[in-house]
């Protein structure tokens, strides 16, 4: 398929069944498009889409017309007022709409076709894909072709819209979003490209139409927990993260009798029962386990952290593991100070971060003088705790690029893959809520900026550099973790998941595209020269 984009004209969508006017809010004085001006036409830039749409409609109508009528069109034509293309096309189309069955085309159409100066001929001559318009004589058997093509068109339109957004042409982006929304009604949004496109169109809409620049989806911490739980159940990514981290922590705690785990995002504490049980069964008996869980404060007076802690304590008691829990309520990870964790120097410490570190990354474009990236400070105080192991699980994607279009493209591919993997899940309502969870992430990546954009995913290679600079060295995850991950995957019904080993880290992906990466680190013992600096980094930069 040849995409017929010129510099300023987007791919138009198939016509609506009733004539619709584009409701573009024109904020700047009407400018004349330069390219068409060169061909002798005066068309306002803001009308370009409108004109393109109408012309495409004419073209499809002509393609559908019986061949004998086309030869009729090739008679002499007169083009009146050639510069006012916009009005002229509209009048043609209003005539066309009246004649539904198109056995004969209005003679006015001949004006459009035969005059060699009428239009840039390359437009009309190009081979269009099979008409995807809802023309009434469309055969039912062509529906799947229609959908596929609609899907491809949606993707093209999404990319074009993202380009407009990057260039700041929000009015063009806005009208394209409306067109995409109407195209969406003709596509199956229950699965496949339709569903992904729906999420991205929604996110773009929030970005373009929200007052005050960008709006994510508001949601309470409680809602987030529920969505997270369903995401946990519907697909293996979080289970993989938990089991892999637990295996690494278990191995790191070997031989220690007092151990302390710091969890950067407790949620429902689903990661810890398995670790408690594994510690209970370890040869030589269980250690004394302390767990410090960090989570957002609960708004309604419930101490949800404490409730989770009590539940974990009950489980630990039933399997005879000495256990103590402490909750640290903080709405942002950077608000946590190391003294809140009350780490005892004699215990072996494990720091566990499942998809939390990326929220600490300042955008690369931000002025470092105003606010240094909290990531450096947090990594600094983690190091000061002298942990035996730091388990880090992150999305394997680059959603923190400075350019919007790059970010958009990357996230479109990433989340399409993730939605694909979710399609295989048959559990409802888990699947639907898991999709909402993913949709919120997409919204944050696409429609938020600045400090509101928390989902700043970076790939494993970049985390390696960052953690290396902060004084951590990688711990290879080992074959036990790999075997366990592979076993876990065999339990999931979808056959497309794959676990790969990547220089001592494990990644879980769908059909050879890694989507989530798990790694383990430990801090080098600090030299005398370094430690005072580390203390300063931990304390001063807040």
């Amino acid at each position, binding site marked *: 398929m040849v995409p017929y984009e010129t510099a300023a004209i987007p791919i138009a969508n198939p016509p609506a069944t009733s004539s619709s006017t584009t409701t573009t809010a024109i904020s700047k004085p009407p400018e004349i498009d330069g390219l068409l001006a060169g061909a002798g036409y005066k068309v306002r830039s803001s009308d370009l889409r409108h004109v393109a749409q109408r012309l495409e409609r004419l073209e499809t109508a002509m393609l559908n017309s019986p061949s004998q009528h086309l030869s009729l069109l090739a008679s002499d034509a007169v083009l009146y007022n050639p510069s006012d293309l916009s009005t002229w096309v509209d009048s043609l189309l209003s005539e066309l709409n009246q004649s539904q069955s198109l056995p004969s085309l209005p003679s006015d159409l001949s004006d459009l076709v035969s005059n060699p100066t009428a239009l840039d001929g390359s437009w009309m001559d190009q081979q269009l894909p099979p008409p995807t318009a809802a023309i009434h004589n469309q055969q039912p058997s062509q529906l799947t072709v229609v959908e596929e093509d609609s899907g491809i068109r949606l993707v093209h339109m999404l990319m074009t819209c993202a380009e407009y957004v990057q260039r700041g042409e929000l009015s063009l982006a806005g009208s394209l979003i409306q067109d995409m929304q109407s195209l969406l009604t003709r596509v199956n949004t229950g699965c496949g490209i339709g569903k992904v496109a729906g999420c991205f169109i929604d996110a773009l809409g929030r970005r373009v139409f929200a007052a005050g620049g960008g709006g994510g989806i508001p949601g309470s911490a409680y809602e987030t927990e529920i969505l997270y739980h369903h995401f946990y159940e519907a697909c293996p990514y979080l289970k993989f993260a938990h089991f892999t981290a637990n295996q690494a922590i278990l191995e790191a705690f070997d031989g220690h009798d007092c151990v302390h785990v710091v969890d950067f995002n407790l949620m429902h504490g689903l990661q810890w029962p398995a670790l408690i049980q594994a510690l209970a069964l370890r040869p030589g008996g269980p250690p004394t386990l302390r767990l410090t869980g960090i989570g957002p404060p609960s708004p309604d007076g419930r101490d949800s952290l404490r409730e989770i802690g009590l539940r974990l304590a009950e489980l630990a008691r039933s399997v005879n593991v000495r256990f103590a829990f402490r909750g640290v309520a903080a709405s942002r990870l950077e608000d946590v100070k190391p003294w809140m964790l009350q780490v005892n120097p004699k215990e072996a410490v494990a720091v566990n971060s499942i998809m939390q570190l990326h929220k600490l990354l300042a955008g690369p474009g931000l002025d470092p003088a105003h606010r240094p990236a909290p990531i450096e400070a947090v990594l600094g105080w983690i190091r000061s705790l002298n942990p035996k192991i730091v388990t880090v699980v992150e999305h394997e994607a680059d959603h923190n690029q400075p350019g919007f279009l790059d970010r958009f493209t990357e996230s479109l591919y990433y989340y399409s893959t993730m939605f694909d993997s979710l399609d295989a*899940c048959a559990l409802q309502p888990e699947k639907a809520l898991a999709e909402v969870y993913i949709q919120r992430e997409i919204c944050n990546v696409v429609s938020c900026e600045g400090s509101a954009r928390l989902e700043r995913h970076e790939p494993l290679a970049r985390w390696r550099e960052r953690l290396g600079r902060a004084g951590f060295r990688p711990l290879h995850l080992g074959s036990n973790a790999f075997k366990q991950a592979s*076993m876990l995957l065999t339990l999931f*019904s979808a056959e497309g998941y794959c676990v790969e080993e990547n220089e001592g880290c494990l990644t879980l992906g769908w059909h050879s595209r890694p989507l989530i990466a798990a790694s383990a680190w430990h801090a080098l013992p600090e030299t005398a020269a370094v430690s005072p600096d580390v203390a300063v980094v931990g304390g001063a930069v807040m």
Partner: protein
Amino acid sequence: MPAASRNSIGGGRGFGINDDVDILTEVLKRLDGRSVCVAACVCRQWSSIARKDSVWEELCFRHVSPGVRPVVVALGGYKRLYMVCVRPLLKRMTLARPDEVQLSLSLFCVHYYETLAGSGPPSSLMFLCNPVNV
């Protein structure tokens, strides 16, 4: 020797399987899960024996370290472990290797933890019930 057999073996009347609970238990222990459930339908005595956790322990893991039993009992018992975890897992792995045993125990533990929450049926193992996509 447990409950005295009413008829001596050499006495000509033979040995009834229902006469010795321990022997009956040992026999039932060697069956597969479905057969144990079928056996539980035979009569009241067989039903009570089929419910014994020791029968299900054999079904779950044949050779494990002694520390496993108190943990499993604390998490709900072997019969529950079998129904909830081992049976779906056996479709995809043998549970003969210690790491497979460990994985099933971990999954069982998450399940138990969810029951502690008390808010609706635990669902973390629902994914095991899905038919394998071939």
